[in-house]
């Protein structure tokens, strides 16, 4: 069987929806005010997670007081600062998608999207590299960290180096397929 053999089936296929009645559709159109709800919801949820994590840290500081190691403060401060540009870029990306011109041809949108998407992924990749290097520098210039047992220090370094090395393959694995599909589509 081939695609052409199923053309008739496509024509006769019906897909039901709750907005099939013309008046309902008109009312719906008249009442439309905003969109992008789902993506904004996800973004707010992510931001809420970050806020909860920071509130948790503040609670930890209050609970532990002076017994808190100084490198912990530095770690949280460094990751917090590094998160800002990536979060900003993600927020802008969502706004960018919402403001896309959906009436132009798919190819034009795809070219613009690919360029934007690749830049966002570069931000993601490089901000991860920078934060890891900054954390390593902060750790090894911190008296509390240097005083930690050898095994703990090695574990921390191995973890950071692993994240450093896996960032690029991870990005390629998670986001690369989509880029490849788009690029393949655009290829003459």
């Amino acid at each position: 069987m081939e695609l052409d053999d199923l053309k008739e089936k496509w024509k006769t296929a019906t897909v039901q929806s709750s907005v099939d009645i013309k008046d309902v559709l008109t009312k719906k159109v008249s009442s439309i005010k905003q969109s992008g709800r789902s993506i904004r919801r996800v973004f707010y949820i992510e931001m809420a997670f970050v806020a909860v994590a920071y509130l948790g840290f503040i609670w930890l500081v209050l609970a532990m007081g002076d017994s808190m190691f100084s490198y912990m403060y530095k770690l949280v401060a460094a990751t917090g600062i590094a998160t800002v540009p990536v979060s900003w870029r993600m927020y802008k990306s969502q706004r960018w998608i919402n403001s896309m011109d959906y009436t132009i041809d798919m190819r034009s949108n795809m070219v613009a999207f690919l360029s934007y998407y690749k830049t966002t992924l570069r931000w993601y990749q490089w901000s991860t590299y920078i934060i890891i290097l900054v954390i390593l520098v902060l750790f090894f210039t911190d008296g509390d960290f240097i005083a930690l047992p050898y095994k703990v220090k090695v574990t921390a370094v191995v973890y950071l180096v692993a994240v450093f090395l896996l960032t690029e393959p991870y990005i390629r694995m998670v986001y690369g397929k989509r880029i490849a599909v788009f690029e393949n589509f655009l290829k003459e």
Partner: protein
Amino acid sequence: MTDPLAKQFSEQVYNHLGILHKICRTYKKDPDDRNDLFQEIVYNAWKSYPRFEGRSKFSTWLYRVALNTALYQNRKDRFFGKTIDVELIQHNVAAEVKDDNTALLWMAINKLDELEKSIVVLYLEELPYKEISEITGLTENHVAVKLTRIKSKMKKILEDYGA
């Protein structure tokens, strides 16, 4: 009182409800997601409708909006890690569609990537290459090449399903 522009727009969209639902069905497996996509398409079309000058057919314009929306709304889902269970898709298709060959067609379409899906949908709607080219932005030759590849991929998929 209903806005006359909204009424005019709704009437035009109403005439193309069938294909809009099929596009939603092609890109979204879950009925709630389909409903969300439908609303998103209507929203994007309505937002741009005042700028629609009639240089292309309304249907061509609407297909562009619908497919662009489907591609990027889909992107949001994947970006945030939402996945679809294949067995669930098959179960839903079987439950929704009584005819075996129609179910087979939907299942085969589900196996295509999101861009191949867009071309297949337009092809199944029997749009001429010129119109598919206007919607996708590809040249007519490029559309023809893509369709040949997609057809052979579909044939293989259908064979795998025993058809």
